[in-house]
């Protein structure tokens, strides 16, 4: 197995993204097409997955990681077909289990950059348990959840993110389920990095991928993805040129939160820890919220996630939370190194002999 390489700064001096300090650097500049596999891409015409794939492929060279050290693990779903299209190592596993499989790989191979591709059904329905446990353990994997609020591959049943009352094949009279807010759930599960972006906003999507790669630990990224076949325009309010600017709140660390057209709006904490929208605020008003992705207490990011509503009245995108916390895989390596230092490397003969032995003949 390849040697683990030391955390390093490149010849050109620019520092390593935080999740990659133990991952070797590419010995040559790679290009987008290096990451295109020979497999013909197979999604429906107009599927948001195309845009995400394209953005992802053109982003990968930025990692400065040789493609053989990149692994993409997915579950089952339309979105989960993505690994086939990226020319790296890939495992298209089973429904909902990608985070568990990826954890095993990341825990044992710190020299790899491990990405999980999943869907709202894959990650939040059948895979919910693995997701929340990966988040609390903070394994060094990047989870990209393609949220189209529908089960695409199985041809259109409601998912854990579908709005209540949604009429689908399995809910002809409207679904009864209250949906999850994926980001609230992630924060409740002790997530150290939580972000949201949109399939059609290539620039923003790329910036979020970059931030995720620069986070050591589990990065959870929700990507709004349009499924033109079974849930078309589900995100119109935040994607359509007209509506978009009024509804989308772009979070920038250190920046005062401003959104909307004209005088626009800001945010402010109400008496009971809820964020309230302030119309036409005076920029000088220092009660206005200035975004801080690094606060330790997740209560802040949680409050941000509660701004969403099914009508997308105010929908924050960007990095909600990005805090440092020891990763599970680093801790695992450290524990082993520590024990070896204290006890010395294991001696098989001694192990087999145990403590009480005797001789015969």
């Amino acid at each position: 197995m390849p040697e683990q390489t030391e955390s390093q700064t490149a010849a050109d001096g620019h520092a390593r993204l935080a999740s990659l300090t133990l991952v070797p650097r590419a010995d040559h500049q790679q290009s987008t097409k290096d990451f295109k596999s020979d497999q013909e891409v197979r999604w429906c015409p107009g599927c948001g997955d195309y845009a995400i794939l394209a953005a992802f492929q053109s982003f990968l060279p930025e990692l400065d990681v040789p493609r053989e050290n990149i692994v993409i693990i997915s579950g089952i779903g339309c979105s989960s077909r993505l690994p086939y299209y990226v020319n790296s190592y890939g495992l298209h596993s089973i429904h909902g289990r990608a985070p568990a499989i990826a954890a095993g790989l990341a825990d044992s191979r710190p020299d790899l950059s491990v990405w999980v591709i999943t869907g709202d059904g894959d990650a939040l329905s059948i895979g919910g348990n693995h997701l929340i446990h990966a988040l609390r353990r903070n394994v060094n994997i990047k989870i990209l959840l393609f949220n189209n609020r529908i089960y695409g591959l199985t041809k259109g049943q409601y998912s854990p993110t579908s709005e209540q009352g949604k009429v689908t094949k399995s809910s002809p009279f409207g679904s009864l389920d209250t949906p999850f807010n994926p980001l609230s759930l992630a924060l409740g599960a002790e997530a150290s990095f939580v972000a949201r972006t949109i399939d059609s906003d290539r620039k923003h999507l790329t910036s979020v991928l970059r931030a995720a790669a620069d986070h050591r630990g589990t990065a959870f990224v929700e990507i709004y993805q349009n499924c033109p076949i079974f849930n078309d325009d589900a995100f119109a309010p935040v994607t359509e040129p007209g509506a978009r600017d009024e509804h989308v709140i772009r979070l920038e660390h250190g920046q005062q939160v401003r959104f909307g057209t004209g005088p626009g709006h800001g945010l402010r904490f109400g008496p009971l820890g809820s964020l309230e929208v302030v119309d036409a605020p005076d920029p000088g008003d220092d009660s206005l919220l200035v975004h801080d992705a690094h606060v330790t207490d997740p209560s802040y990011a949680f409050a941000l996630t509660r701004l969403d509503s099914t009508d997308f009245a105010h929908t924050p995108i960007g990095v909600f939370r990005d805090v440092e916390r020891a990763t599970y895989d680093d801790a695992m390596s450290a524990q082993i190194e520590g024990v070896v230092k204290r006890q010395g490397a294991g001696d098989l003969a001694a192990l087999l002999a145990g403590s009480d032995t005797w001789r015969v003949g």
Partner: protein
Amino acid sequence: MTKQVQQLDRVIIRFAGDSGDGMQLAGDRFTQETATFGNDLSTLPNFPAEIRAPAGTLPGVSSFQLHFADHDILTPGDAPDVLVAMNPAALRANIDDLPRGGDIIANTDEFTKRNLTKVGYEANPLEDGSLDGYRLHAIPITSVTVKALEGFAISKKDAERAKNMFSLGMLCWLYSRPAEGTLRFLESKFAAKPEIMRANIAAFQAGWNFGETTEEFSVQYEIKPATLPPGQYRNITGNTALANGLVAAAQLSGLPMFLGSYPITPASDILHELSKLKRFGIRTFQAEDEISGVGAALGAAFGGALGVTTTSGPGMCLKAETIGLAVAVELPLVVCDIQRAGPSTGMPTKTEQADLLMALYGRNGESPVVVLAPSTPGDCFATAIEAARIAVKYRTPVIILSDGYLANGSEPWRIPDLSDLPDLRSEFSFAAPGGANGADGSQPFLPFLRDPQTLARPWAIPGTPGLEHRIGGIEKADGTGAISYDPDNHDKMVRLRQAKIDGIAADIPPLEVDDPAGDARVLVLGWGSTFGSIGAAVRRVRLAGGAVAHAHLRYLSPFPANLADVLKRYDKVLVPEINLGHLALVLRGRYLIDVISYNRVRGMPFRASELAGVIQDVIANA
């Protein structure tokens, strides 16, 4: 006073008491001394249900049976010669197993009105003559112990706790066991609490002296060491042997080991053992559930580790889908199922062999895997290494079927020389850049181009330039591994996956038959943990002049190549199983031989006597 000494060739002692009485510990120590002394032995701990029961109740009784002898033995024995009963519940729960004339050592202090009624004794059996048929040694063990420890600065509770050491000392004297080991053990165990340590040592010695000095015991017994094959020995349980075997396999293959596991009785101890072995670089991951445990192991295997997962029946159900994925992507995976009594939760602390058909067939689609079963606690070591060898060489999941009896039972084990262990490095290699089907870039890498010998596909791990590839659970085109819905390709792949497993038969030892006289017309064929009981039964039959052959299967899938021939050589084939006939069904289906099943599903190993009778009957009708 010196007492008369009597020679015995074998003794079976059962220590029984309340879960809190420390009988497992006493038994363990006695076993260690016995081992060190050089007797052959076999043990059977019998735990109450996982959950603690109230003190003094029948469900709270915990016992430990030890069979030791001056010759080699195979089972913990059917019926004890001596019963140590630390309270009325222990007596009531075990007395029926004690043959008339047996010794009973009872702790009179616990035979209070309250404790007696708790288990439904109207009168005190120690006094109402109901035990007249036995040799009763009524000893106020608790009070004698407390008295002996008066001098020590410890609580009454701690003093009482030491009563198991008193009993141990007494029995060590009675059966002339050495004491050094126990003293050393106590010193290290209570190193942190010197006063407690001294008290326990004192209790042990008090027990010893009690035996030597009082009138209670008129004779002392001696059991000469057994003549086992020469070598360095230790006593070992199945779970420890399995854990050590896995560690050895990792070292012998030069692979880092990754264990993904979720605790479950009786498999948890393997996780515990391996968690202690960080110095061997072993990564142990306590997963959120069994699915995650096996998933993580598979992910690690994709990355080039020896991926292992350990569980028991209910957990096996949950791993099925992921094992199926491992079959489809053809990656190495070692799955340990420490069987327990089912169905469902069943009886977690009891043993059973009823997961065999699940291991063979419990997945959707045609999903063949390798299945191995160890036959004794010590054999778990070799089986683990063999499982790893096959897994990495053929890139396939290998299921090890151990069980509760092997897991917790122990036996003397000849410690192997490292030089005698197989070199697994020579059995496999990772696909190398430019190596395996010319991935020098000239041709595309073919992740499903098989080795003509083994039919194994290349194990191309991330980090290897030029071998980038994508695999998954969808059907793949032979060779390229690209998604394929082609009907004929599917039929071909289904058969190739089966052929790969079947082909392993050529790479495993033939089934050996134990038929000393060579004149047997009846074959007893077993698998897994019944080896001891069957072996002992076969001996009895032979001693009684019966001719019978014994063969024991370690390989359940694929079967050894010579199995058909072996079966055909005998008029009658008897297959005893602790299930309703799993192996029998497969043997009959495969070879159309009318094997005779003998099944008892009692959560316990077979009794040798019982099996001997069955064998006699079969011989009689042969």
